[in-house]
């Protein structure tokens, strides 16, 4: 799933490790989400949403998944 995590992280000048610490996941998890190789669980998506104070649908784009 496409997402803006990398852009949002860059805007805050955070490294992947910084973001991983804030979300309480591993750096590898952040990398996998950013590259679209892992779709976060709903609880983690909510944590990301709260951290960046943005709605989930503005961070994650599910248009490729179809309806």
């Amino acid at each position: 799933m496409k997402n803006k995590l990398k852009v949002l992280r860059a805007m805050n000048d955070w490294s992947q490790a910084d973001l991983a610490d804030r979300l309480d996941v591993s750096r590898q998890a952040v990398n996998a989400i950013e590259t679209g190789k892992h779709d976060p669980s709903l609880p983690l998506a909510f944590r990301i949403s709260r951290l960046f104070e943005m709605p989930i649908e503005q961070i994650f784009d599910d248009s490729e998944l179809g309806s």
Partner: protein
Amino acid sequence: MAPLEGQPVSADLPGTRTKRTRLYFGLMDLCLIAAALGLADHIASRLLDWHLQPGDSIIYTAFGSVVLFFNFIVPPFLMIGKFMRDEYAEMLWQRSVAILGYAFAFAPLLLLATLVAVNLTNPAAQADGAFVYLFGDVPADWLLITLWMAFLLTWVGIFQFLRWRDAK
């Protein structure tokens, strides 16, 4: 839409889950190295008839103890240590176990096909029993340890390969 409210995210300090998962990945790295070293030593002792025993060398004994610890104690712990995995590590675990399951589902078929091929090409082998012909005078305990080590090495290898591929 207003920002979502609910559980606060951690702000400064790394969470315990992060530390545990970092340790999990670190132990996985060590297990892969130890599994490769252990398997190489095990095969060398068989094929090259190289039988350096614990006690022959303090260094070998110490090194071997560490390798054995990461071969037989740590991997089973990592296999069941769900509390150490974050959701990404858990996903890697599920994918690696699924691949391992497929491999073990088809491995016996491959073995049986090999036995049939051996029997067809060499009918005399049937008299000795196919497994005896295939494994010769391999001791059962050696075979068990080799299979166990191969199982752990395969699982650790698959897990690490998937992790490496995702990181590319």
